[in-house]
């Protein structure tokens, strides 16, 4: 599993307004284009989770939780009510417990 690369992807999207906008507009397209420029590669599961903005699966994989929440808030904020997003995120995280997030 290339958790590091998933963290790197979230880091880029979270910190750059342009990348954030491009990803939200077309998640699979942005993921594919970004990965092309990287020497490391995602596993199929990681790629699928990023294409779906699937924070529950990403959390369960053990990506960095601090970064994941900030990323999740950034890429869902225009489509989901924040209270609802917090509730759903926490419910999904609770199912996975506390995966080791060391890279």
């Amino acid at each position, binding site marked *: 599993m290339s958790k590091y690369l998933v963290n790197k992807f979230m880091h880029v999207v979270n*910190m750059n307004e342009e990348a954030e906008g491009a990803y939200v507009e077309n998640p699979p397209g942005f993921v594919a284009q970004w990965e092309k420029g990287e020497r490391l590669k995602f596993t199929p599961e990681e790629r699928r989770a990023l294409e779906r903005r699937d924070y529950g699966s990403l959390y369960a994989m053990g990506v*960095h939780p601090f970064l994941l929440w900030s990323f999740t808030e950034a890429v869902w904020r225009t489509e989901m009510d924040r209270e609802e997003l917090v509730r759903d995120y926490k419910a999904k995280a609770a199912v996975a417990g506390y995966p080791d997030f060391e890279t």
Partner: protein
Amino acid sequence: MAQLVTMLGITHNPFMPRLFKQAQQPPGAAKVQERIAMMRAKLAHHKPDVLITIGNDHLHQFFMDNMPAFMIGKMDRFHGTFYDEVREFGLPECDVPGDLEMCNRLLEGAYERGVDFAYSSELTIDHSIVVPMLFVRPEMDIPIVPILTNCIAPPLPTARRFYEVGRAIRSVIDGLPDGKRIGVLVSGHLSLEVGGPKQFERRLMDPDFDARAVGWITTGDIDAAARDCNVEQMVPSGNMTMGFLNFLMAMGVAGGASPTHAEGLDAGFPAVPFFAWEQKEEGAGL
């Protein structure tokens, strides 16, 4: 000789500056603001010429591609903060003067004492320094020397190493030849969860950890803290509880002096830390 005139330890909760400006505030917010005002008054009273600001970058400038355990910013001006912190927390962008000469002295003095800090001549500070400055010195007119730790991306340095680096910082301060008045501003937290199943709960995450942690600071008990503060032990108290380690560095800087204030404030949030060490009389160390 330089003098360490005060050291303050406070929260860097990035949601608080915006929260305190809102008309409707949760019941505990007033208590937090009272303590912040008290800390601001302490800093003003001791009139430091320079502030060594200790915090931790939150995967902004430093990332797992190149992660320093401890680093010093080496600039005469520091910019804060990053796009995502403006977006998520509504933090203001700011510029803080830096004391470049002191940055270099601290870096070189630490090398001589066996602590090999990384350094950065292009450092942007995030909420771990911006928020404490907004709280205790909103004028942002005292030059800073920023020190950043890794207490967010495991594997982390040991708890004892945080303390030892604090000891080395104090030794450098005590050996500085000029008469500067040095303040230290440390930020961190007690038990806390971000991005896990318990995030944003308006309660203490782990009151038992908080009480023990405040006790270690109060008594200067680094042995007990070192025994109980590795990542595996801290995550059950809240997945980001490791931010407490910055206060163990403060304990090292204090060098056995008792704090004049030590508290994990229960204000209806995860505990809000407030620590202070102060010079008791002019000319005397902490």
